């Protein structure tokens, strides 16, 4: 703040700034600014703890045009080396960044809450992403070879021109990979991931048609017209059924423009909507739980798919989980190796122990007995399976960063799959041997139960809090509901008024002890409050970690008290 000179000669329009005045003006400016900022800070806080639209159910991450996103191509060798020898991504141990204030994953281009948000009929789960009951690919022309992966196959188009990828089962394990593919697709779809349509088909070799424009790449790297002998060579690496046909999976390509794969760390630099580092996305961290359950050892970035969808000028990227041919007992082109799920391809500690002891150190998984069942099962078991120790083929940044609350979120979804649902999903694979279907179902159920025992109990497992208008608090103990824990001795509750603007609690109540998941809120605490919070500890001798409280926040609204926040300590 400058002032006119108060003494001495002055010329019109000219201002003189004595030193004392300058200092004084500066002081006043600083004080005023500090006062204003203080007022703003007091009235504003940094930002309210909860916005009016919390908890968001949908993260609208398709609003900005991503037309300029470029296809990304992945190298198997680099991907292995990068994740094995380096540690890519932000390795801070922080909570997932894309959850809403209720600690849930909102719908997005990555994930759509299905079985976790609503009851799904078994038929709906089984149908999965498929729009049709079945497809018959006889006479659908082959338009080109299959460009990636080790499974023999090719691409065909249906009469409307839609593209499908055909993948065959290995000769020694008929029905194995195709069964795994449709089971995996149904489960991942029900969980909430984007998955392409996939169908089990039987292909009559006499009805295979090669389009005149079909091409393939020979071992010289040259693309040339595809010949019948190329197809015959593929079929020689495929399982032939007793009826002379070849069983395969027909996977329908998703709509849009393929953009390659997504990484399990960082963000796509060319997608304006992709703002959450993938290693901190809960649905990617938590997918470790699903991968462990299903033994999806090939769960890596290269088995994902980004598609550019939408009309010109309003395109966005949708992220798919892709290729389930290597889950359960299937290794795609052979029965899964015993190491899969138990150890990374290259894991230093056991390797050095084995080296130094000249092989006297024996990794425990080597001694696992796999039951003698049908070849379509591959190598799949539940007895030795330890969810917490399960590993993919090589490290996955999002899996590495999974925290107990991420795993708990995922385990709750796993708990939604009933025995009946799993039996129906397995039936979709149409195994010729009923014993194979029965064994796979029983194994999935047993592994599911281990997953729940491991990860539903890792945090204080309170969910679904509700506060009625009459002030009655109810909640659910997910571990008890799933049958993996006995009822706790009781719960200890502490109520507070909550100031949303300052993110602070006040008027803390005395501890309230209840024996079950129901309590009456102190009326005085609710009276005149817009927000209240309650801290709930669970007292269970078997799970001392459950004493770490879950804090639930409620907001008074027109319809009563709404849960708007949940924090697990």
């Amino acid at each position: 703040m400058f002032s006119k000179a108060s003494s001495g000669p002055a010329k019109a329009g000219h201002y003189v700034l004595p030193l004392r005045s300058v200092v004084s003006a500066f002081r006043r400016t600083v004080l005023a600014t500090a006062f204003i900022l203080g007022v703003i800070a007091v009235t504003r806080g940094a930002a309210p703890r909860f916005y009016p639209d919390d908890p968001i159910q949908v993260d609208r991450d398709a609003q900005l045009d991503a037309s300029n996103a470029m296809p990304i191509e992945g190298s198997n060798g680099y991907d292995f080396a990068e994740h094995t020898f380096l540690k890519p991504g932000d390795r801070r141990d922080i909570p997932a960044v894309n959850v809403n204030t209720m600690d849930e994953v909102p719908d997005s281009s990555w994930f759509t809450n299905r079985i976790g948000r609503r009851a799904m009929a078994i038929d709906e789960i089984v149908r999965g992403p498929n729009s049709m009951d079945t497809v018959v690919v006889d006479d659908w022309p082959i338009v080109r070879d299959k460009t990636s992966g080790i499974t023999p196959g090719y691409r065909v188009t249906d009469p409307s021109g839609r593209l499908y990828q055909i993948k065959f089962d290995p000769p020694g394990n008929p029905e194995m990979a195709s069964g795994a593919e449709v089971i995996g697709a149904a489960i991942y779809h029900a969980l909430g991931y984007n998955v392409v349509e996939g169908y089990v088909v039987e292909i009559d070799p006499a009805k295979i048609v090669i389009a005149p424009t079909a091409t393939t790449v020979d071992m010289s790297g040259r693309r040339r017209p595809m010949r019948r002998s190329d197809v015959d060579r593929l079929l020689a690496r495929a399982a032939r059924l007793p009826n002379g046909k070849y069983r395969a999976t027909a996977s329908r390509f998703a709509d849009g423009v393929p953009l390659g794969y997504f990484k399990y760390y960082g963000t796509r630099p060319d997608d304006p909507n992709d703002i959450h580092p993938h290693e901190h996305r809960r649905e990617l961290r938590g997918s470790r739980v699903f991968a462990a359950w299903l033994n999806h050892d090939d769960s890596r970035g290269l088995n994902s798919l980004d598609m550019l969808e939408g009309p010109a000028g309003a395109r966005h990227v949708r992220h798919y989980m892709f290729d389930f041919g290597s889950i359960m007992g299937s290794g795609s082109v052979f029965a899964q190796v015993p190491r899969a799920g138990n150890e990374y391809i290259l894991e230093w500690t056991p390797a050095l122990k084995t080296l130094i002891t000249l092989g006297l150190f024996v990794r425990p998984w080597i001694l696992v007995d796999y039951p003698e069942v049908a070849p379509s099962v591959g190598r799949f078991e539940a007895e030795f399976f330890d969810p917490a120790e399960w590993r993919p083929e090589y490290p996955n940044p999002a899996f590495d960063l999974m925290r107990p609350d991420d795993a708990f979120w995922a385990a709750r979804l796993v708990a939604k799959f009933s025995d009946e649902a799993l039996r129906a999903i397995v039936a979709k694979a149409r195994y010729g041997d009923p014993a194979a279907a029965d064994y796979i179902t029983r194994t999935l159920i047993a592994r599911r139960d281990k997953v729940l025992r491991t990860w539903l109990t890792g945090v204080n497992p309170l969910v679904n809090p509700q506060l009625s208008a009459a002030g009655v608090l109810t909640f659910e103990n997910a571990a008890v509901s799933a049958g993996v824990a006995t009822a706790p001795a009781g719960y200890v509750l502490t109520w507070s008024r909550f100031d949303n603007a300052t993110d602070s609690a006040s008027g803390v109540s005395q501890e309230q002890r209840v024996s079950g998941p129901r309590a009456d809120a102190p009326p005085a605490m609710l009276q005149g409050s817009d927000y209240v919070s309650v801290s709930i500890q669970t007292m269970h001798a078997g799970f001392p970690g459950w004493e770490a409280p879950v804090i639930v926040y409620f907001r008074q609204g027109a319809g009563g008290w709404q849960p708007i926040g949940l924090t697990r300590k």
Partner: protein
Amino acid sequence: MRRLILVAVQLLAATAAFAQEPATRAEELARQREEKSRQLAPPEPGRLERTLLALENGRLFERILNPPEGFYPKIGNITPGGGFAIGPAYRKPTLFGERATFSAFAMGSFKRYWLAESRLAWPALAGGRLSADVHGRLFEYPQEDFFGLGPASRRDDDVIYGFRSSELGATAGVRPVPWFALGAKVDQLTPSVGPGNTGRSIGQVFRGSTAVPGLDDQPDFLRYEFSADLNLREPQGNPRRGGQYKVVYQRFDDRDLERYNFRRVDVDLQQYVPLLRDRRVIALRAFASTADADAGQDVPFYYQRTLGGPDDLRGFRQFRFRDRNVLLLQAEYRWEIFTAVDGAIFYDAGRVAPRFEDLGFDNLESDYGIGFRFGTRNGVFLRVEGAFGSSGGKHFILRYGHVF
């Protein structure tokens, strides 16, 4: 008044700042995305990733080193002890309706070994049950080691000879089931022995065909061969269980001098005993070879079997022992360290003898050692081994391919 104006300006600025704060969670996220939209950049893989991707997509290694068709560089060993060799090669796999393949190559080593070979093959006739080929090869090995004949040959007698020959012949095979094959082969051979291109020549120490059969004169031969191969190894390239049992009978007909007609029988038995679900393996091999010349005739030294080198008696130099009859016993304990690397502890024993009845388990030369094998269940591409405990000193071995 001025102060009031300035305070008002500051309040306005603060209010504007306040207005920029999002009012909803959706708005907060939208602003973050708007912010990112101003900083978009195309994905840029690093140099290493680009290189590996180009190698994978372009199948450069296959295209350059082992293409199914056309010209390529052939790299490897011509013969044990011949050194690293390289040369041009060509193959055409689709002759006669894709039934026949033609291949030809020529390669030379830094030790001036060279080999030229051409082959026209029908590898899978009658649904893969029959195979046949015609072939020709011409080679020169100028630095072959020779220590004398028999078990008592002296290390100090190490000399060099040169060996040159052509082979022109045909092969036929029957494989009624995948694990059993019968084979027949006939070749015309034109061996020639010379002084070698370095070191002490064989003629400086050993003189005359009486002491060393075939040293002074080398006739042409017709070689007939019959073989039976029962191969139950699993997997074939890097066996963990099963065995392979092979018998080969050869007849060498001296076409010029009628002094070197002889027969030979080789028996090669391999057994693999799996332990700990195939993660450990006891690998055993017994190899015996016996050659029997016609009455009054002899077996030329250059066709006699040898012991010593990275594939048999690993604690000895290449071709350290040579005679008509050979016995080799090998045992290995192999343990998987991780997916691509196995360790191995081995013991080799063997001897040569002028008479078959002299072969036995007494007075065997032996060695032991430790090594590592790099590869997959389909095959070993590199061996690194150290062999010790022999009278031939310590030997470090770096070799492509499995020992057995």
